């Protein structure tokens, strides 16, 4: 299949890190790095992520976790976290 180019916006820090990997000889070009990164993420998402969601949904089902329960539990955790982070007032 023919390659196509895409435009991606990266931060200066990210580009510097990529360039240092290219300079070190781990990748031939920036494009080479991005191709490897894409392949890695696609492989991970294609195989592991659906399995992860299936597993976690099965656990959530067993624990009877519903949308309403999530909203209620977040409210309580949020209030505790607020106190821990910012104090009581």
């Amino acid at each position, binding site marked *: 299949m023919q390659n196509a180019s895409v435009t991606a916006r990266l931060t200066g820090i990210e580009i510097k890190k990529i360039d240092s990997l290219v300079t070190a000889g781990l990748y031939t070009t920036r494009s080479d790095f991005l191709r490897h990164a894409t392949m890695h993420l696609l492989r991970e998402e294609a195989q592991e992520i659906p399995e992860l969601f299936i597993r976690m949904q099965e*656990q959530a089902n067993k624990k009877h976790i519903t949308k309403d329960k999530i909203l209620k539990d*977040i409210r309580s*955790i949020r209030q505790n976290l607020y106190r821990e982070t910012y104090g009581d007032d």
Partner: protein
Amino acid sequence: MIKLFLDTNILLSTLIPDRKAHILCLSILLQNNIQLITNEYGIKETRKILEEIYLFDSEDIHRFMEFLRCKIEVVKIPSKEEFKMINSKDKSDRPIIFSAKKYDCVLITDDILTKNDAKKYIMALGSREAIDIFNIQKAKDTDKFAKRKSL
């Protein structure tokens, strides 16, 4: 450019067995056209709930958090000084509302209280509204999951 700030309930709803709610929130998370943001406060809440309340498997929690960090830009927790101008019925919502405002985002939350308070400062939408307004394509259940659910 539109950016969506995801409240914790959107992140966690991707895991619930209720297919309708799950699909809406997962679709927002999986789309690649609109930048997604949350803050460390939301990430901490997500981790705490999965670890301390729902007692999920720690390796799964780790992977889920990694997945979120791949998909969402996580910004710093604001200082108290920064969000003092935000008035909300529950003061613990202020770091979320403030961060969404600071980063010029539309807040996506299915919590009515948070949404109504946020609307005083920014645009705030529920997951269903976000799907419709931003024309986000709905994710599909994997066949495997659909099959398991039918068992």
